[in-house]
């Protein structure tokens, strides 16, 4: 009798049978398609430009554009693992079936992690495939990866950051219990905060931007980026996100009455 394995299997079944899961996945697909479109038009204007202008083109790394949205959509799936149960009161039967709160949260975190890693890898690969198809063997600076092997660290780190976002969102869900509040906070964290950072004084702008989830990807991968953290520093910040979200989520989930 393996209580944890059964709880994970049940959570997996729950996430598959939620309509919102598929809606958020569709959101990720739409984002990727939109990203491809933008990249395509960018390459057209690149091809029309003079060689001098071409050298001034910014790097067309599709992960920079699409991944924050992917993080939001896939993170939403992680948050809904918990908030959908509170908002529909099915948390009652869920806890009757698995009354050990830490174990239940652990099972949900496992599924959130699997969904985050799987979907993160999928969408990062899709963005990369996009780039290869559209950019072909055009040189730097527009092409971030004239050699496809150069993309490997970015893809891996982008997938990892989606996983981390999914866990953070699940922890948020355990704390706020409401879908609306969890998704608003998640959106603020991955979509709004990076824009907001631009309005801070320059010194603070970089400091804040360096610790924001979407910006951790290039810092972890060690690719070209304007931020402040070393690869090790980025890894520490990433670990801190997971630790804080899961600890706060677990405390809230196990202390409060359902």
């Amino acid at each position, binding site marked *: 009798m393996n209580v944890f394995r059964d709880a994970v299997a049940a959570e997996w079944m729950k996430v598959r049978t939620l309509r*919102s899961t598929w809606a958020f996945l569709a959101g990720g697909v739409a984002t990727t398609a939109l990203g491809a479109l933008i990249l395509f038009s960018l390459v057209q204007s690149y091809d029309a430009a003079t060689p001098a202008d071409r050298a001034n083109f910014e790097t067309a790394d599709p992960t920079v554009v699409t991944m924050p949205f992917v993080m939001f959509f896939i993170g939403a799936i992680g948050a809904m693992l918990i908030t959908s149960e509170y908002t529909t009161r099915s948390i009652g039967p869920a806890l*009757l*079936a698995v*009354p050990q709160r830490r174990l239940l949260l652990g099972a949900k975190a496992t599924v959130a992690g699997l969904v985050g890693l799987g979907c993160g890898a999928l969408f990062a690969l899709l963005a990369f495939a996009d780039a290869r198809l559209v950019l072909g063997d055009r040189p730097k600076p527009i092409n971030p990866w004239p050699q496809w092997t150069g993309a490997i660290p970015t893809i891996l780190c982008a997938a990892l950051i989606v996983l981390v976002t999914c866990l953070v969102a699940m922890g948020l869900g355990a704390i706020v219990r409401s879908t609306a509040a969890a998704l608003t906070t998640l959106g603020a964290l991955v979509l709004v905060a990076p824009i907001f950072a631009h309005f801070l004084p320059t010194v603070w702008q970089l400091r804040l931007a360096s610790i924001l989830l979407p910006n951790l990807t290039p810092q972890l991968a060690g690719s070209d980026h304007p931020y402040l953290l070393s690869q090790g520093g980025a890894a520490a910040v990433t670990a801190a996100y997971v630790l804080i979200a899961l600890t706060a989520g677990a405390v809230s989930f196990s202390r409060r009455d359902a």
Partner: protein
Amino acid sequence: MGSMIELKELTKRYGDTTAVDRLSFEVRPGVVTGFLGPNGAGKSTTMRMMLGLHRPTAGVALIGGRRYDEIRHPLHEVGAVLDADAAHPGRSAFTHLACLARSNGIGKARVNAVLDQVGLAAVAHKRVGGFSLGMRQRLGIAGALLGDPAVVLLDEPVNGLDAAGIRWIRSTLRSLAAEGRTVLLSSHLMSEMAVTVDRVLIIGKGRLIEDTSVAEMRDRFERDVLVRTPRTAELTGVLTRLGATVTRTGDGDLVTVGVDAPAIGDAAAAASIPVHGLTPRSATLEDVYLEMTNEAAEYRAVAEGDRR
């Protein structure tokens, strides 16, 4: 096969309201036990603490000697319905149960069997959101029966059910108890309990008022006879000699306890005392219950009035 439920000094406070106050009792297997009390008496809070959903402020609730959250795969031992609306409206009845079943290592065949047992087989793959209250109650009970548990706990299971649904729940619960299971169901109405339960636990203001059997409760009724006669003093003497306790009402009628109506009529005839009225009165279970919980209910009404 059933296990005992034991509460020891179970207490729950929300701020300065004490919802459950040092509640101790046992629920035995093989019978249907009713958990009665007026609205706000603390029934739901008590059941939620028994099942680990709410944390007690003090005391413990044990099922088969263990706290609920110490049981691994608890659906095999305890089945409960606390809330008819506790299924995701977007899932089908089948997937809702299949998710619960999977977490306790229960197979899909058993899911279909319980859906069949509660009469939902035909709508198994329809979304729960479209279900009527009666269907959702049945779905809840199907969930409680998934693991073939020895203990069944239901909070207000007949709320909002039609006559056929109530009859169905009654017979289901009685047959579960007859199989030796421990069955506890709560209600705020005595009338719906009287025909379903064998034992009753009555609480008010979070405290235990009565722990008794329905038969005992019936026997404890004050059965009296209202007698109207123009010669009250003489008849009082006759009836007192028969061993009755006689009191007078404000209207000059006699209230007699201890002898039944035919005996009173015979005694009056033998003494040639005319009798103008002879009315046997017996309190209903509902009356007795209301009397028992009256104090608690009144207190609550006053307390709520004060707060406004």
